[in-house]
């Protein structure tokens, strides 16, 4: 109860609360498409690769948003350029590009002499969310949700059967890079809540949890957004009460939800299917 009272009282906590929920929602939404397109590693790459952009923004004294988006987009194109123009496979080109960007980012940040900032960027500190950060997150959230709602049909068909989508005239490469761009925006918005290193957990795990629970993409997107938001709130709660870094708590919360679905999902859960096969065996035995 104390938490809710504090939430009513403290402005900074309200900002953190709103930001957390929005971050959880948009990570779930974009994460659903990332998971279904088999681009989990790409999500990890983009989130790490925005670090040099953040560092350069700090040095120039501009909002980290601009630098982060720039390096995020550069990474997406860099990875595409390598895997399309050489025999290097996609996962390897992801590894090459993102480790280079991440390394550059760490050197730049330590040069900028802000060690505390580095831990915050790496692991998240949801309680330090400023009003401008909150607005940035809300605007990014609105853009992401709007784009996904408007182009849901096209996202569905191109994620499911890219060849058919291309055959009837959808620009599948444009769709791919648009998703990369949205992913970059989402990652930037998540910086303060989960931090660079663990953004991938909020992108991949709630979406994977939802994937175990439904046979409909729209339901999966809603469930993923819901699980993402719940995990973010749990992260905020522990971060506030026990002074823990929010990122790792959020990551573990997403994992806990995943484990529950993994064990108990009505269709995919391993406990449920074990139980089902046991009762089926019993049926067979009694029928004989």
């Amino acid at each position: 109860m104390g938490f809710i009272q504090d939430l009513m009282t403290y402005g900074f906590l309200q900002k953190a609360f709103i930001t957390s929920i929005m971050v959880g929602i948009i990570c779930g939404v974009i994460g659903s498409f990332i998971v279904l397109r088999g681009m989990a590693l790409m999500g990890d790459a983009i989130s790490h690769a925005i670090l040099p952009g953040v560092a350069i923004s700090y040095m120039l004294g501009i909002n980290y948003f601009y630098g982060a988006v720039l390096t995020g987009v550069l990474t997406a194109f860099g990875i595409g350029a390598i895997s399309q123009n050489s025999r290097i496979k996609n996962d390897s080109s992801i590894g090459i590009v993102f480790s280079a960007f991440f390394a550059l980012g760490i050197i730049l940040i330590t040069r900028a002499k802000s060690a505390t900032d580095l831990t915050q960027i790496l692991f998240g500190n949801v309680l330090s969310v400023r009003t401008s950060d909150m607005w940035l997150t809300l605007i990014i959230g609105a853009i992401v949700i709007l784009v996904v709602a408007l182009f849901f049909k096209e996202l569905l068909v191109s994620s499911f059967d890219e060849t058919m989508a291309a055959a009837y005239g959808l620009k599948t490469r444009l769709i791919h890079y648009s998703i990369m761009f949205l992913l970059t925006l989402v990652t930037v918005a998540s910086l303060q809540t989960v931090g660079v290193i663990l953004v991938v957990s909020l992108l991949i795990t709630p979406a994977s949890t939802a994937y175990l629970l439904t046979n409909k993409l729209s339901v999966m997107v809603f469930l993923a957004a819901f699980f993402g938001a719940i995990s973010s709130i749990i992260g905020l709660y522990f971060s506030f009460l026990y002074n823990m870094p929010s990122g790792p708590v959020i990551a573990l919360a997403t994992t806990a939800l995943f484990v529950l679905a993994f064990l108990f999902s009505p269709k995919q859960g391993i406990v449920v299917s074990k139980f089902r096969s046991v009762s089926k065996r019993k049926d067979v035995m009694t029928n004989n």
Partner: protein
Amino acid sequence: MIRQVIIYLKVARGKHIEGGNRMIDPITVENISVSYDGNEVVKDVSFSFGASTIIGVLGPNGAGKSTLMKAMLGLIHKDHGSVRFGKKSVDEMRKQIAYVPQRSNIDWNFPIVVKDTVLLGTYPKVGILRRPKKADKELAMECLKQVGMEEFANRQIGELSGGQQQRVFLARALAQKADYFFLDEPFVGIDVSSEEVIIGILRELKEAGKIVFVVHHDLSKVKSYFDDLILMNKELIDAGPVNKVFQSGNMSKAYNREFMLDGLEVSM
């Protein structure tokens, strides 16, 4: 057996393929070549086919059959060559083209049920920024009935057998109400009754004047399934009416070995 007959009757009843009075323009392919990493996999292939036919694309493994089909549809880069639908390019005709990919290229764990998979076929004509309406959903259900799969409407696609999956994808192609159909290996790994349903529908499409391309590698049934044939092994061996192309000499050239065709033909 009875079940097969029932399916067949259902299929025969559900006539939703439009006849239409308009004549479908012929497809003309000129000198298409495609290479991967410097190796030519399709060399200078040319042919032309008019309306109302089922065309088998035949050749040994690695002959470039699927590649040719993808190149015709502009899905992969051509070294050179052109494809014309009447006077139009493929980009102008996209909404008139339905493509059924190889089953191995589909993610069967995708969160989508059968009826929504068929509904995808209406997307090209529904257009961007619009939602499928009630009429589109009805059309999808009709197409599903036509392939005898309506009782599976709410199943996730991975829960179906290979033949059922192929029928669902054919239903999706029907929902596109296209003039040109391209099917990549539709008969691989499917049951007999599904195969009968599929070939029955392809024949209906042909009767309605459509042009149907089928990538195929099983040599039995070639004569009974196809009206025309494209026989290739990287380069074109021969193209034209099946009786003219499906000859021992041509086949030996394509498969690099002796052929006795008499034993191959199995009637339906």
